[in-house]
């Protein structure tokens, strides 16, 4: 029946061997990355160079650019990369990039998906979107200006969204005469910045995206002092986040009942692994069952891991619906009515405490009340108390639900720790969120008997402490009075 099977028979042995080699070369999932930097840093030139040198740009696409009357070739006779990338008419007219675009290229070793986000307008919102799925961030700086406040902002957002691999692209190195000392200085400064954010996997690369040095092709001849990898080398070897080492998580998307004899739960494994015979718990109900079968179109499988789209059959008739989660019985996610989370506000109105939202996480959608607690000042990296989050703000919030919710901390599992907020009036997506912990109960006996510590600190130290993230998360459980040192001593003496 198949058109292709007849053809397949004609494949010569030679071709078969060749194909086998090619397949082995690409033995990896696509690496997802985000590029951060402004137009001035040469971001479009860098992405254009990546696509051009890996031959992802075809002749007719370059020709179409040549027909564009705003187009001018650069001094190397290459197309204007920014025009190549700006897909929308408005962008071509205004010369700006307005939204997240996705670019695809591949080398012999790996496929790549680049989230290309604008450096200026609403960069927080767009960067957060692009970073949400990225394994790695390329942070671009101009070798002439070095690390800027903007670099800190981009690195902070990338870290917040869970990225733990940074590449610092020190671009336009040709414009400072391939000055090694200057490069080393910028790299060291960045290393400090990244370490302060808790990121230790850092690679700094001197490059000229315009001239194509150290992007895909080595720039050794221009800068013999640099014997490290090119950008593409680093990307080829970068690691991918995986949710395979954590507890089994299976958010149920739909129930499949094609006939009386079959009842399966369809979804994608969001963490850990599963095999027939495993004991699982259905949440939020808490019903326990064993896995009977893992069904796919191709075969009945003896195991499934994070990322696999499967149909799960349990050994007994239990009540399972879309939005439920099937999880390992000995390592279940946190179940509760209140959670603490970080939030990125994506919409004009911002996030308000007096409004109820829809929260969607995996396949589960439920009503939630969101109380903003603090807001991150991206300029200084400090957290300040705040009861609302305007557009593009990043903050910590307290979530309270009417019905039980289940999450893992985002740090542990990106799939089951992430959520979006939907405005019920407009149906628009207004925030992206990351779960930190289940909220601790503070009322009743628990609250009254909680142990507190009274500290008396110099004002600057106290201010520093209060600007920290850890403090922001417990802001509601802290009482603060500002006094002079004599009065503070007197009070403490009174207690003794």
């Amino acid at each position, binding site marked *: *029946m*198949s*058109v*292709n*099977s007849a*053809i*397949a028979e*004609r*494949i010569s042995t030679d*071709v078969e061997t*060749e*194909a086998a080699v090619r397949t082995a070369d*690409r*033995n990896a*999932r*696509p690496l997802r990355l985000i590029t951060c930097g402004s137009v001035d840093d040469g971001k479009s030139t860098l992405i254009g160079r990546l696509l051009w040198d890996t031959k992802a740009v*075809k*002749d*007719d696409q370059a020709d179409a650019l040549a*027909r*564009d009357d705003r187009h001018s070739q650069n001094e190397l006779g290459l197309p204007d990369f920014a025009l*190549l*990338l700006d*897909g*929308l*008419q*408005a962008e*071509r007219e205004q010369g700006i990039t*307005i*939204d997240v675009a*996705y670019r*695809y290229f*591949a080398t012999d070793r790996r*496929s790549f998906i680049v989230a290309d986000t604008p450096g200026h307008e609403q960069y927080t919102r767009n960067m957060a979107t692009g970073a*949400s799925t990225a394994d790695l961030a390329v942070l671009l700086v101009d070798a002439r200006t070095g690390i800027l406040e903007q670099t800190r902002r981009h690195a902070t957002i990338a870290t917040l969204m869970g990225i733990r691999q940074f590449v610092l692209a020190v671009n336009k190195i040709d414009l400072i005469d391939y000055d090694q000392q200057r490069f080393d200085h910028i790299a060291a400064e960045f290393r400090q910045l990244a370490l302060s954010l808790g990121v230790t996997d850092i690679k700094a690369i001197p490059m000229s995206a315009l001239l194509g040095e150290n992007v895909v092709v080595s720039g050794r001849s221009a800068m013999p002092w640099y014997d490290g990898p090119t950008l593409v080398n680093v990307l080829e070897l970068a690691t991918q986040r995986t949710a395979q080492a954590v507890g089994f998580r299976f958010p149920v*998307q*739909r129930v*499949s009942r*094609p006939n009386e004899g079959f009842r399966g739960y*369809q979804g*994608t494994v969001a963490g850990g692994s599963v095999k027939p015979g495993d004991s699982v718990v259905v949440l939020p109900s808490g019903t326990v069952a064993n896995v009977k079968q893992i*069904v*796919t*179109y*191709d*075969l009945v499988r003896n195991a499934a891991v994070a*990322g*696999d*789209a499967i149909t799960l059959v349990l050994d007994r008739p239990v009540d399972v619906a*879309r939005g439920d989660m099937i999880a390992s019985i000995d390592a279940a996610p946190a179940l509760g009515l209140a959670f603490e989370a970080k939030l990125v506000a994506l919409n004009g109105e911002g996030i308000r405490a007096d409004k109820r939202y829809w929260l*969607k996480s995996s*396949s589960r959608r439920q009503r939630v009340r969101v109380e903003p607690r603090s807001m991150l000042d991206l300029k200084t990296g400090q957290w300040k108390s705040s009861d609302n989050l305007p557009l593009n703000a990043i903050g910590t919030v307290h979530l309270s639900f009417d019905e039980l919710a289940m999450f893992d901390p985002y740090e542990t599992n*990106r*799939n089951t720790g*992430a959520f*979006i907020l939907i405005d019920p009036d407009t*149906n*628009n*997506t207004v925030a*992206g969120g990351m779960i930190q912990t289940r909220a601790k109960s503070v009322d009743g006996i628990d609250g009254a008997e909680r142990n507190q510590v009274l500290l008396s600190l110099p004002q600057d130290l106290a201010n520093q402490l209060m600007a920290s993230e850890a403090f922001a998360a417990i802001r509601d459980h802290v009482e603060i009075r500002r006094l002079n040192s004599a009065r503070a001593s007197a009070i403490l003496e009174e207690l003794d």
Partner: protein
Amino acid sequence: MSETKPPLDPNLKALESEAIHIFREVAAEFERPVMLYSVGKDSSVLLHLARKAFYPGKIPFPLLHVDTGWKFKEMIAFRDRVVSDYDLDLVSHTNPRGKLEGVSPFSHGSSVYTNIMKTEALRQALDAGQYDAAFGGARRDEEASRAKERIYSFRTPDHGWDPRNQRPELWSIYNGMIRKGESVRAFPLSNWTEVDIWRYIQVEDIPIVPLYFAAPRPVVERDGMLILAEDKRLELQPGEVKRVETIRFRTLGCFPLTGAIHSTATTLDAIISELETATVSERQGRAIDRDEAGSMEKKKREGYF
């Protein structure tokens, strides 16, 4: 499925799982989904993935084919065979106004023709079926404005797309909330590239229209494109000569608007290695993309896929 089938490489497996996830999510969240089926290679992959997503059940929504009346004959024959082999529920729609007025790519030009027979026809069919979600096989690597598409792409009640005002889409959490009359176009193949499509067709042994494979076929050259010359409605213009050449198609649309390429690729392996060394993009053979700069974006805003 045969026992000896080699396992998918991790790249294709990740793409397959993502697509299946999107199919299931849309089927669960929307009341009346439909799948656009254009009979091309991407549609073949889309259909295969839909069958996998709902196995052991049947695909829980109909397929919709917008028939312009100017498709390649082999495409229609292939379509009918697939529908009967897989026991599918297919809705075929042709714009009655266009049919009545005899709108053709020759009489009205490619732009007007595409607008009436494809975009307007699609809107008619979507309205008639009251579909609130429509799957399409578009890929982000195909064309610059498609690079900005969401996986769930929101449409107004008149099917318009506003690229400047799209909903943010984070992680793999899709927002399927709409009001009555609004709809979502869902793109399970968003992250696939052309080579991924071909590799997947090969390893999964997915049937495709034979026009993708090279063979001697009658063609004429017109406006720099090689047009298949087997339909009686194609009238030769002065100076045009019909000749037989060994050609194949990289994409399939309406025969007067789809250019063939010279190729000797008669196997999937040959097609894939041809692609890996190709210096032109697949849409190079599509006349409608070349009407004016930004023409795909314009069509998409009006409701084209």
